[in-house]
């Protein structure tokens, strides 16, 4: 890639970044252009990923050079996949059920052992495992193991609706809510920090692209956007004043 293309790329990246950030001031045509480009580019990216990572190695190559069995193993799912496209033809849209039912059947069949192993058994094991050697733990570890076990049971009880939550049950359920609140708070905090780290990354890129090496891309584009918004405001003010007269 030539140096010129890299500088051009910096200008494109800085422009797209600032166009999207301009939404923080107000909705505007630059944001809408970048937003629609994002939708298209996102689909384009996934399209090429699907084509080069799935279609070529798993369909086109076996069809070109596979044995009879391998070709059959490609044609059957391809027909099931093509059946999905009949969704667009109302009269025969029921054919798409063949593709969907295969996906649902396979996913449901996989979801049971995977859910059972990772989400159910592992979580139960993680909760009760410390009690296997409870008295060899330190005081603080014992305390933590008890908190986790009590919290897990209370949260599970909160989601258990087969008995009415009253009396002791209500208290247990209420304790469960506090553990849920800690989890939600921690998740919220993590999400905030993840978004902010992305934001720092974008600012860092913008600062980088404002250097002489990239011909001050960020500065020029930011100045252009500012001029546009000032001019737009001026035109609006003048038009308002004229109509008032």
């Amino acid at each position, binding site marked *: 890639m030539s140096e010129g293309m890299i500088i051009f790329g910096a200008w494109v990246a800085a422009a797209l970044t600032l166009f999207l950030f301009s939404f923080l001031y107000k909705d505007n045509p630059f944001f809408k252009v970048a937003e629609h480009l994002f939708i298209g580019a996102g689909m384009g990216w996934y399209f090429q990923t699907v084509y080069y990572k799935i279609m070529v190695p798993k369909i086109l190559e076996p069809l070109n050079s596979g044995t009879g069995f391998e070709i059959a193993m490609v044609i059957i799912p391809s027909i099931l996949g093509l059946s999905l496209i009949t969704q667009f033809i109302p009269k025969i849209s029921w054919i798409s*059920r063949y593709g969907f039912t295969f996906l649902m059947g396979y996913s449901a069949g996989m979801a049971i052992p995977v859910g059972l192993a990772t989400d159910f058994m592992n979580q139960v094991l993680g909760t009760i495992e410390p009690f296997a050697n409870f008295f060899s733990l330190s005081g603080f570890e014992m305390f933590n193991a008890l908190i986790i076990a009590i919290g897990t049971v209370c949260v599970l009880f909160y989601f258990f609706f087969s008995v009415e939550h009253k009396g002791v049950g209500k208290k247990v359920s209420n304790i469960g809510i506090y553990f849920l609140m800690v989890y939600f708070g921690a998740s919220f905090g993590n999400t905030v920090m993840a978004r902010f780290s992305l934001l720092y990354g974008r600012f860092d890129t913008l600062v980088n692209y404002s250097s002489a090496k990239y011909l001050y891309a960020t500065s020029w584009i930011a100045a252009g956007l500012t001029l546009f918004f000032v001019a737009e405001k001026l035109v609006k003010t003048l038009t308002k004043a004229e109509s008032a007269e």
Partner: protein
Amino acid sequence: MKLFKKQIPLAIVFVFGLVTLASYYVPHRTSEEYLDVMNSWENIVSAFGFFLGLISLFYAHYNKIKRKVDGWGYSLFVYIGFLLMVIPAVYSNGKQINPDASITWLGWAYRYIYNPLQATMFSILAFYIISTAYRSFRIKSLQAFVLFVAAFILILGRIPVGQMIWDQLFGFTKVTTGQAIDWVIGVPSTAGKRGIMIGVAIGAIVTSLKIIFGIERQYMGKD
């Protein structure tokens, strides 16, 4: 017609669901090969599913352009954005990096078009999260206070000013912000998460069984 419209699709769910489930627990080469083949089939059918979404998106924007609805011009940029990624991909044969470690046209498009758009779009959410935080952190009850404290420790504990405040207020305890964060995530938050995960797992297993046995069939649509 009922046979083709309803019974065969339900039979497909039942057979594939049960055989996949059984194969997972049968330690035999045939069942492993079956799972490999099914995984490949699932990838292929899902790929066509992606095309379903793509055609649907293009059709929606084509209609906007055709009917010249408000802002139809922006719809053109959906197609432009798509081509900006696909043409370099075809030219680069789906590769982002050349053998000499330089970036290809696809790598260029990813680095200077898709990545800035994606990262900025998600980073903008940081600003909206702040306004959401203001609303959710209005402490009206003890439960809201607990949520606030957990989030506060997680957010402030990871930045230098938060660590300074922590040292001033709780320095005497000799507990660092890192240790406090680890404890919140590792103990009470884990308890909450485990309860949810176990509940979700039970829900997913029950729903899967309902799908396999044809009790849940909303995905089949009407008719």
